[in-house]
């Protein structure tokens, strides 16, 4: 099969690899019809996540058609069109029983903090991801969700991570009616966090980034105010000024370990790797939120050491909440939102690229070229499947 192949920092290519096989009776093999490049894939692409091995296939956002199922799979059948949450989870362990699917204890022998994630290094279980023609999907009766018949496949693929993560970010902010919410980062997750903040009753939503085309997009899509941090002297001071010197009620970090905006953080965190990435967005969250406010973190940070202003958080009496999104928990509600027209996720897709051109797709997204917001990769066999379906329908 054709699959994305990581060769080292800033180097990926499309290669022929062996097809995945059923390795456990609960597995399914899914023929991928759409996969996305996620902002957090860039942390892997840039070589910042430990134990990202050469030869790995990335891709934790994908939808596809069930091609084969293991002997224990009862709910899913060959031919089902499914969206697959990015978490690999069992549904039965201590943490899954608490709906903490991002923290499943049965899918990742190589680290204790996080559960398995498709195509997200061996620190997240060493599973190959969906930027390929086929992918192994463990616990097929638990993770995948059949895509509703009336749902666009492009909406469905954004339900595998970007939208639920943005939604959970807003939810973890515990927004009350009329709250001022500041979202740091205007990537796909930040865009969806801003959109979701309104669903939770925010009174004001401000999005901060440094890329003008992304700010223009989020202003139109999420009807929010925007700030380009390159145009202000001090981000926390600016937010204080915007909020009658109180600070925002809720701040959301939708950036993670590669934040721009602080030379010291960038040099120590990204270039010298003296800490696990640049924590600038988190600094700004803690320092921009009001006393007693909430900080919600969904931007990805690598292990293990980061310099963050925990003393300020203590002195301000903040509530900090964070996690990988438990996608499956949010799906029923988010499907309702899409069907009711409250959110139209597919509008953020700006690029559709054949899987064969994955190198260029990563470079465009990573370097923010061509006004890229979200890229969908389409494997050659996806078109083949569509052709078959189309023939069958006629």
């Amino acid at each position, binding site marked *: 099969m054709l699959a994305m192949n990581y*060769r080292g920092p800033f180097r990926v290519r499309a290669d022929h690899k062996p097809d995945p096989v059923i390795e456990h009776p609960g597995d399914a093999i899914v023929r991928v019809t759409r996969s996305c490049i996620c902002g957090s894939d860039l942390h892997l692409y840039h070589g910042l996540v430990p134990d990202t091995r050469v030869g790995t296939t990335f891709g934790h956002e994908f939808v596809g058609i069930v091609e084969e199922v293991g002997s224990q799979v009862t709910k899913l059948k060959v031919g089902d069109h499914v969206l697959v949450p990015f978490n690999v989870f*069992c549904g039965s362990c201590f943490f899954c029983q608490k*709906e903490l699917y991002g923290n499943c204890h049965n899918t990742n022998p190589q680290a204790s903090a996080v559960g398995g994630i498709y195509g997200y290094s061996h620190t997240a279980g060493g599973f190959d991801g969906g930027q390929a023609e086929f992918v192994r999907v*463990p616990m097929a009766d638990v993770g995948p969700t059949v895509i509703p018949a009336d749902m666009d496949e492009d909406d469905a693929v954004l339900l595998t991570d970007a939208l639920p993560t943005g939604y*959970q970010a807003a939810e973890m902010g515990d927004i009350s009616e009329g709250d001022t919410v500041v979202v740091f980062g205007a990537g796909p997750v930040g865009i969806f966090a801003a959109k979701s903040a309104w669903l939770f009753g925010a009174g004001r939503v401000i999005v901060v980034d440094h890329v003008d085309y992304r700010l223009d997009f989020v202003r139109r899509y999420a009807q929010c105010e925007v700030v380009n941090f390159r145009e202000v002297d001090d981000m926390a001071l600016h937010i204080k000024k915007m909020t009658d010197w109180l600070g925002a009620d809720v701040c959301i970090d939708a950036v993670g370990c590669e934040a721009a905006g602080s030379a010291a953080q960038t040099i120590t965190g990204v270039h010298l790797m003296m800490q696990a990435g640049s924590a600038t967005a988190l600094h700004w969250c803690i320092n921009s939120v009001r006393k007693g406010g909430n900080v919600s973190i969904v931007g990805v940070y690598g292990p293990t050491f980061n310099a963050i202003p925990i003393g300020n958080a203590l002195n301000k009496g903040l509530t900090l909440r964070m996690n990988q999104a438990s996608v499956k928990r949010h799906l029923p509600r988010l499907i309702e939102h899409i069907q009711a027209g409250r959110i139209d996720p597919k509008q953020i897709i700006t690029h559709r690229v054949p899987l064969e051109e994955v190198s*260029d797709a990563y470079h465009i997204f990573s370097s923010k070229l*061509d006004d890229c917001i979200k890229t969908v990769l389409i494997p050659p066999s996806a078109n083949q499947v569509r052709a078959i379906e189309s023939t069958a329908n006629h």
Partner: protein
Amino acid sequence: MAHDHHHDHDHDHNQGRDLAVFQHGRPPVDRSAIQGWGADLDRKNRPGVPMERTPPRIDAPLTQPEQQPQHVEVLLSPERPHMTPLFGSPNPPRGVSGMVRRAAFKETENDIRHWLLLMLADRIDVVEGLVEDLGRGHVPNILGEMGIKAEWQHNKRGLAQKVAIGAAVAGIACYLYQRRDRR
């Protein structure tokens, strides 16, 4: 609407308080213009609050999954030393990078040496990947893998700058090297 967790100092004005006050002097947002505004304002509609919800909403088996057969080496975190029922099997440790990874997994995740050794192994792995490519007769198109086509298409000026800087650095290095040789 009432918003009771700040502005307590302004008690006398509470009766006349409207959303504009709570938005820090900004005009109130036209909620009707925002599709779905407040749809999840009621906490009962929030699927993740409380975050830990039991029983879970999905219908999953309550038994431990069957053990996946192991055909390749999988390294185990000392902080969860038993093999999980499910695991990823691609790209087992190999070569020198594999030796470094094995050493890393002798340390706990709580120990920074674990992560630093893994980062070192990742860099060694890149070199091993190049050797592997060459070993099977494949000369990797490194510029292509880095997306030079997209750079040429969408960022010609940036590409020209990078080429110019690269050429300047190479030229200076060459000059210094030759000067050292002449001494």
